[in-house]
Each structure stands twice: as structure tokens, then as C-alpha cells.
């Protein structure tokens, strides 16, 4: 054989290009992975730096417990509870709508639907998941709001219910696909065991499959709620702009995300309290969603350990 491939007789690495290439690529790839850590550090730093200035002027207790949020009026008041309340109202409302619907759909897909039906329905859910938020905001105003106001004449034009409905549609695919995955991962033998005892499909689903898949399903709910909490454009368009402490879904409210959008649009020179509110609210939002995500992941991890 024509020996072209040269071998180092002593098995040491040849000097030169190849070694460099390895080193360069290793470093470059490490940097890529580190970029994700830098992102987190960046988020935390930026949010903290501006928020700390903010909390220099506004007491953190007032911020967390105040029930009036009027940062642009004179004198301004910085109690985040109304924004928090709005967020809870929209996220809670959408969860109330989307969870039963999503769980029902997941059960249908995993227990009832034929493979062909699944092949039709799953892409439709994927399409629904891919529709941008702003489109749902439009839908809420042009389509949902008039219907809501026909049913409840006392409803404001912009109200929390509008937003809850469209956000529910947005988180629906997430609930369905995550729940369906866990439902399908319940071993077939459990189903057969129950059917063999003369259980109806309802008995099997409610009594055996749901309890077995419970933690995965809970995790999917929490992830979906986290998503609803962070949902922005649809809520900014549909829910109104009035930060108030109310649990009436027909009222106009403002969420944390919508506040950030609204304030970003206006004139807020760097260094002003108005500019810093964006970061203070952003920090609260970040911590809230982070807590929900970590909780969901913890549940999922525990579930995986259980199955193994």
C-alpha cells in the first residue's frame, strides 16, 4: 500500500495546524456554551443594577405591599400589587380555561384518537402554537371583546377576560403536548390490568392513568402558567392599561408584562424613576417565572426518577 498517511513513530502529537484547530474549536465551542451563562448573568445584572437604584428611592416594602401603581402621576406611587393582581387574574383565568380543555384534548389524543386522527390533530396544535402573540392580541380586540361584551354588557372594552381567553388558546398546545407525552408514557400494562377487571374507559382514565401521570401533568400545567405569566403582546393589547386591584375578570387591568410594554413605548430617559420601574417590574416577573419553571423541572425530575 502506498504509504501516504504518515504516522508519528513515538505516538506524540504532530506539531502544527491540527493541534491549533482543536484548541481553537474547543475554546470557541466553550464560549458558545458559556454564552448561555453570560445571558443569565446579563439578565440578572442588568435587572439588579437598575432595580437597586430604584429601590434606593422607593422602599422595597412599599413596592411589594403597596396597592396603588401610578408611577407616572404626581406624586408617583409604586405598589406593584395591582400589576401582580392583573397578572394573576389573566394567568389564572387562562389556566381555568385552558387546563380542562387541554387535559381533555390530551386524554382524547392519548386514549381515544386513532393514529390517523392524531396525525391530523397534532399538526393543527403545532400551528396554533406557532401563531405569534400579537395576532392573538388582534383577535382579542376584534373578535373576542365584542362577544364578551354581548354576553356581559357591563364588561369594559378592554378587560381581563379577553386576555384570558386568547392566552388560554396560546397555552393550550403546550398543555396538550406535554400532558399527552406523560399520559402515553404510562405503561400499557397498567391500562390492560384495569380493563381486564371490567373497568370502563372512564374508570381506567380517571382511576388509573391520570393518577399515574399526575406529576407530569402538573408540571405541564405549571409550565403553561409560567408561559401565561410571561405572555406579553396579546395581554398588552387586550387587557387594558389600568393597574387596579380587582378580581373581576370583566374589569380593565394591567399586567406586569403589559406595563413594561406600555412604559417602553413612552419617553423615559435613562436614570429616571420611570425608566427604572421597567427593570424593577422586569425583575419581579423574571423571578416569578423562574420560580415556576424551576418548580416544574423539579417535579419532572422527580417523576423520571420514580419511573426508573
Amino acid at each position, binding site marked *: 500500500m502506498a504509504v501516504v498517511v504518515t504516522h508519528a513513530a513515538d505516538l506524540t502529537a504532530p506539531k502544527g495546524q491540527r493541534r491549533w484547530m482543536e484548541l481553537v474549536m474547543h475554546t470557541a465551542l466553550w464560549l458558545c456554551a458559556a454564552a448561555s451563562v453570560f445571558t443569565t448573568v446579563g439578565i440578572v445584572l442588568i435587572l439588579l443594577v437598575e432595580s437597586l437604584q430604584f429601590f434606593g428611592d422607593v422602599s422595597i416594602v412599599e413596592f411589594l405591599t403597596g396597592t*396603588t401603581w*401610578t408611577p*407616572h*402621576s*404626581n*406624586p408617583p406611587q409604586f405598589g406593584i400589587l395591582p400589576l401582580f393582581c392583573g397578572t394573576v387574574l389573566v394567568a389564572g383565568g387562562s389556566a381555568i380555561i385552558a387546563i380542562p380543555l387541554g387535559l381533555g384534548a390530551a386524554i382524547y389524543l392519548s386514549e381515544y384518537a386513532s393514529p390517523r386522527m392524531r396525525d391530523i390533530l397534532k399538526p393543527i396544535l403545532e400551528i396554533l402554537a406557532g401563531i405569534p402573540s400579537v395576532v392573538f392580541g388582534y383577535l382579542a380586540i376584534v373578535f373576542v371583546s365584542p362577544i364578551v361584551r354581548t354576553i356581559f354588557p357591563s364588561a*369594559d*372594552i378592554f378587560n381581563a377576560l379577553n386576555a384570558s381567553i386568547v392566552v388560554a388558546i396560546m397555552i393550550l398546545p403546550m398543555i396538550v403536548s406535554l400532558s399527552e407525552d406523560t399520559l402515553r408514557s404510562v405503561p400499557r400494562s397498567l391500562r390492560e390490568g384495569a380493563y381486564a377487571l371490567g373497568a370502563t374507559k372512564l374508570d381506567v382514565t380517571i382511576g388509573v392513568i391520570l393518577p399515574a401521570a399526575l406529576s407530569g401533568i402538573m408540571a405541564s400545567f405549571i409550565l403553561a402558567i409560567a408561559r401565561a405569566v410571561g405572555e406579553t403582546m396579546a395581554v398588552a393589547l387586550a387587557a387594558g392599561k389600568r*393597574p387596579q386591584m380587582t378580581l373581576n375578570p370583566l374589569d380593565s387591568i394591567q399586567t406586569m408584562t403589559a406595563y413594561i410594554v406600555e412604559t417602553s413605548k413612552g*419617553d423615559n430617559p435613562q436614570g429616571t424613576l420611570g425608566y427604572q420601574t421597567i427593570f424593577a417590574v422586569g425583575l419581579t416577573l423574571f423571578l416569578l417565572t423562574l420560580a415556576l419553571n424551576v418548580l416544574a423541572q423539579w417535579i419532572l425530575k422527580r417523576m423520571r426518577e420514580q419511573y426508573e
Partner: protein
Amino acid sequence: GCGRTNVVSIDGSSTVFLLSAAIAEEFNAVNPDVKVVVSQAGTGGGFKKFAAGEIHICDASRPITEAEAAACKKNGIEFIKLEVAFDGLAVVVNPANDWCDSITTEQLKTIWRAEAATSVMKWSDVNPDWPDVELELYGPGTDSGTYDYFTEVINGEAKSSRQDYSPSESDNALVQGVTGDKGSLGYFGLGYYAANTDKLKLLPVDSGDGPVAPTAETVRDGSYKPLARPLYVYVRKDALENPGVVKYLRYYLDETNKVSPQVGYVPVTDEIMKQNVETLDAAAPQAVAAK
């Protein structure tokens, strides 16, 4: 991009933005080679950039303050001021409101000041002669220039206002809101009243000299007090060496009286317009020659 000669950069008031952008749009159709960038950082933000030399033109819904003028001077920035339109605010109630035919600025303050949030809930709280009807308030969002202006002249301090009203950036929603409820009261740009005269009842405002209804006339001559104000554009003098800027400004002055009503503002008088043209001609002699 300030350096390029075919670019005109404008920033400043969001109120004037509507006018400047509309004119820029028409201008763009006839002069596609000049790129006009219109932003809306607010009057204050605009003047900051203006003083720093970052933009050619600053839209303003109030005259420049002394501090801002001093900042310009420090940076060697000279400017001219053009008065391009008048903006009036309309105070409206539901057509079914048969007890209130005009309102005083004092009454407006009673209704809108921040402390009113806890005390003034009914029309009778404003004036004992008025009925015991729930007061429903509609107004622009806290980020708008209209809000700032109204709070400043009525409540005495910008952004000082009760917050338990229904705000909306969409004036249409305000119109709908006022239409929907017998006890409602709202304020917004005069232009929107003009488009909805049949659905709304306009209240003349009394600032001490008797009630005055807002019309093009009363807004222009200043008798509709204090809810009318002139709108300005400030132009850097050295920017007038840029032929694109001059072209745009000439076009602006030619068109503004036609466009103003379309975006809800009141045109300026011929006299003011003449003054504007003279100011511009004086500042941009080479442009006069070209003309």
C-alpha cells in the same frame, strides 16, 4: 444617521409626530431620494438629542425651556422655531347628559385632581345642583402628551391626576366609552370630537371669562383657554445647509394647514404662516436663491 445629506432626522413630541409623520409621508411620495426619519421620544427627550446635535429637527408641543436653550447654546447649536399647528382638547359628555352644558376649569380640577379619587364619585360631588349620577371618566393614557398637557394646565402639575379612570391610547375606545354611559365624561384631542359630533356632547370651558366652545377660531386666537396650545418644530440652523432638510421644511409649511385637520389639529392663520416662511427664508438664504 445625521451625516448623510439625503437623510432628515426628526425626533421629539409625540403630539407633533402625527403631523410631521403625515407630512413626511406625503413628502416621501414626491421626493423619494430624501429619507425622513421621524421618531417620538417626547418633547423633553427630543430637546436633549437636539442639544446634543443628534437630530436636525425637534418636534415640540411646548416652547423650548430656558435650560434647554442654554444647553443648545453651550453646544453651539443655533435654531429657528416654526409654529405649525394648534392642538385643542375637547371635554365631552354623553348626549343624554341634560344637566351640564358647560364646565369651569375649577370644576374640571375638582373632578381630575389626584385627591378626587376618593371623594368625587358622583356628578353631585362636583356641583350639588347636578344629579346623583355615577361619574365615569375616560381619558388618554399616562404616556401621551395630551395627558401631560391636560394635567399640567388643569391640575397645575404635569402627570398629577386621579388614576381611577379608564385610560386608552386609542381615542376610538374613549369615544365608545363616553357614548356607552350616561354619566360619563372624557377628554381627548379635538380632532376626534370632530369626527364623532353626533355621538358626543361637547362642553364649552369657562376659565373665568365665560364659557367658550372649542372651534378652529377660538383655538387659534387663544380664547379657548387653557385647553389649546400651539405646536412647534425647532430646526438647527446648520442643518439648513442640507438641501434635504430645506426641501422638507418648505414642503412642511406648504402642506401643514391642509394636513392638520386630517390628523385632528387646527391649522395656523395665514399671518403665522407668512411669519414662518420669512423665518425660514432668512435662515436659509441659499435655498431662497434656489427657489
